[in-house]
């Protein structure tokens, strides 16, 4: 019974960690959209928000790590769980870097690419949110993890396609005159899509952990 009591606190912290990742994904989505929809000044407050979320996620991850080892909980899966938390933390890191890059470089996204960029941001953020659902299911109901993993895979493919479309349109366009501008647009398309790649990496880890945990 003591073990069950101890784990309740830990379960709360793990839930808190996934909440943080999900919020960071939402902040990323809104922040980039604000920028694309001519409200670049708002990105600063989003960067502050995502910084706070990243710090919180870091703190929670460390607490979870200490508790898992100190209380000898889930000894068979704790390595997998810590790897999972770490790789998910990288996703927030990635989101923060993209927002920062938008704020520092202030790239000029031509109007004909705005819609594709918005779709790309949505696909990437959706991938992260489905990843969070998959990770939560790993802790609570392992049988549905694969359903969410499939969704992440779908959104990652969508993001890849949109990234490709943006790059092609940018390099084929005569509206984007200089090569440096084209390269910058390509860079931001790649950066935004990187978030969905991160979500897919987390899900690959999850898939292996599910196999290891199955009887």
């Amino acid at each position, binding site marked *: 019974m003591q*073990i069950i009591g101890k784990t309740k606190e830990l379960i709360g912290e793990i839930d808190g960690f996934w909440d943080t990742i999900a919020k960071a994904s939402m902040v990323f989505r809104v922040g980039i959209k604000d920028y694309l929809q001519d409200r670049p000044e708002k990105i600063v407050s989003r960067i502050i928000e995502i910084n706070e979320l990243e710090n919180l996620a870091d703190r929670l991850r460390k607490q979870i790590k200490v508790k898992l080892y100190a209380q000898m909980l889930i000894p068979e899966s704790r390595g997998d769980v810590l790897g999972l938390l770490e790789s998910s933390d990288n996703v927030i890191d990635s989101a923060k870097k993209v927002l920062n890059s938008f704020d520092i470089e202030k790239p000029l996204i031509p109007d004909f690419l705005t819609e594709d960029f918005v779709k790309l941001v949505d696909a990437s953020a959706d991938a992260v949110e489905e990843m969070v659902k998959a990770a939560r299911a790993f802790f609570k109901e*392992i049988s549905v993890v694969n359903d969410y993993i499939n969704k992440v895979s779908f959104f990652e493919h969508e993001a890849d396609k949109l990234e490709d479309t943006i790059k092609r349109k940018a390099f084929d366009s005569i509206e984007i005159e200089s090569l440096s501008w084209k390269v910058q647009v390509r860079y931001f398309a790649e950066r935004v899509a990187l978030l969905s790649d991160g979500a897919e990496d987390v899900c690959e880890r999850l898939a292996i952990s599910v196999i290891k945990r199955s*009887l």
Partner: protein
Amino acid sequence: MILFFLSSGLFLGWSLGGNDAANVFGTAVGTKMVKFRTAALIASIFLILGAVISGAGASHTLGKLGAVNAIGGAFMVAFAAAFTVFMMTRLQLPVSTSQAIVGAIIGWNLFSHTQTDYNSLVKIVSTWVMSPILAAVFSALLYLLLKLILKKWKLSIFRLDSYTRIALIVVGAFGAYSLGANNIANVMGVFVPVSPFNDISIGNFFTVTGIQQLFFLGAIAISVGVFTYSYKVMKTVGAGVVKLTPQSALVVVLAESLVLFLFASSSVHDFLVSHNLPAFPLVPVSSSQLVIGAIIGIGLVQGGRNINFKILGRIASGWVTTPIIAALIAFIALFFLQNTFNIEVYKQKPAQQKVTLINRDSIKVKEKSENKKDEDMGNHNKKKVIANKIELKNHTS
């Protein structure tokens, strides 16, 4: 002096505790689901309880195979078994204490010209073959059942972890009890006919028999083995020749414990007999082979992808080689003990039929001694040797 003679049995007990406790708590400790100290304490308590309360059944069968009737002989039989286990373990050959002790008893039978009870031998050997198969069947069924339960209950990872820990402790305790009940016969069974202990009555309510005291002593030796040596073995088992999830490990230990219990429990035996059902013979079996059988059972349910037929072959070879080696060592050691130290290793049975052939001056002398009932006295219980017949035959062409 008595303790000296018991020392070989105690050594066998220590070795059993060191090695076989890992079959009950190995995965739980190796995977850090249960702390070693907790596992060792529970294992010791339940091993002792199992040995003292339910240990008599399996040792009775060993007694029927060959009742070693001198303490010197019992010492050497246990020593030969222990030495066989030690030697074969060093040579990394598959070995089981149960098989070694049976071989050593047969060695004593041969040395003391005692007829081996072939019914008991067949019963014991068939159990060696049957028990891993039964463990495989149990583990396959339990595995399917657990899978079904987990699918229905949809437990979270932490809840499953907590329940698994509790179950590993409970099943481990049952396993330790069954191990004590079944395997104490290997450790102290040969000393039963020559037990130096008398029954102790506590008030008018409770009597501790001499055999129970003997088994208690053996169980203490097993517990010392658990505390002093099993940690290393448990770590090896946990790190895994075969990697199991804690839930699969639970199934393996439960299947193993059930089989050990069935082959040790007089109550189950009597219940089955009273209901005209086929009863399990009460025979000491190898817990290591049960574990392998149980793992194979899970492998079969999973589609047979994990079965190593080489291991099966090695187990089967152990059924033959271990008893033969133990019998040989026992025979030689008994000869050595009797003729070098002049210690009595067996007592001549008065009712035994003796046939001796003596060649003297081309004359064959056949001497027979036999028991005959004294019918004239009308007393059917009194037996008397009434005559020695000497037949003389001319050794002529």
